[in-house]
């Protein structure tokens, strides 16, 4: 009887441990195709706003805008306005011409030396 109780307790502990470990698991939320629309000479500022939302930085009356991105196993995600740079933070910089057409862009590895 004592042996049976111990067995049952061990089994329950195993089930609880498994449940806890499942609860801690995370799935990637990044989008691998998030930046596929970005093409110099083609993409407009409006498209960037519609796809990526509010930028983290704007300069020269929206001629230059920046976004803070993170990358997980699923792809890119916009991290929004936060103080500091964390994880594998990347800064996406867009430069537009007077008509709002993208002329340059770069992915700056802020956390890379």
């Amino acid at each position, binding site marked *: 009887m004592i042996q049976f109780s111990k067995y049952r307790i061990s089994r329950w502990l195993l089930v609880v441990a498994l449940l806890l470990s499942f609860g801690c698991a995370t799935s990637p939320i990044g989008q691998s195709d998030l930046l596929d629309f970005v093409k110099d000479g083609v993409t407009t500022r409006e498209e960037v706003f519609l796809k990526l939302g509010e930028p*983290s*930085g704007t*300069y*020269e009356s929206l*001629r*230059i805008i*920046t976004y*803070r991105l993170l990358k997980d196993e699923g792809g890119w995600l916009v991290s929004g306005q936060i*103080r*500091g*740079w*964390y994880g594998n933070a990347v*800064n996406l*910089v867009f*430069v537009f011409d007077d008509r709002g057409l993208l002329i*340059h*862009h*770069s992915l*700056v*590895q*802020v*956390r*890379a*030396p």
Partner: protein
Amino acid sequence: MKSSVRIRSAVLASTLLVLTGCVPIPVPPMGDRAGSRRNLSDQVPEFIVIGKTTRAEVLLVLGEPDQTTDNGGQFIYRRLSEEGGIAFIYGGGGRGGVTGVPVTLRVLSLNFNENGVVSNVRVGKRVERDFGPNLTPMLYDDPASTEYDTTHAK
């Protein structure tokens, strides 16, 4: 007998030092602090030329600055790292810990003229001790307090 007294005295002295909060200890280099950028060195980046480099070019290479002043007329980039040195252990009645960790602060400051072209660039590097609340306002709220080492003049 004499050695026993010496050991007791040493232990007592060490305990008192810990309790009074002034025991120096070596701390190893821990690299860049969490939240700090890494794409900044001790030198002015080669691509930056006064009177030529534009705001857009700076942003495309370095990314958005950690602080802007003068309505975008000045960019400030900062990097914080722990490169080792001497810190302090303090007792404090059970709320002790390590304090005064030396933090190396690298700063790149850029000024732009009305055409968005770099008009001045300075780099600075100094070591500050992190006693907690003293570091944050110094880093983020008072750019004027930064002392710069060199002025770039190409």
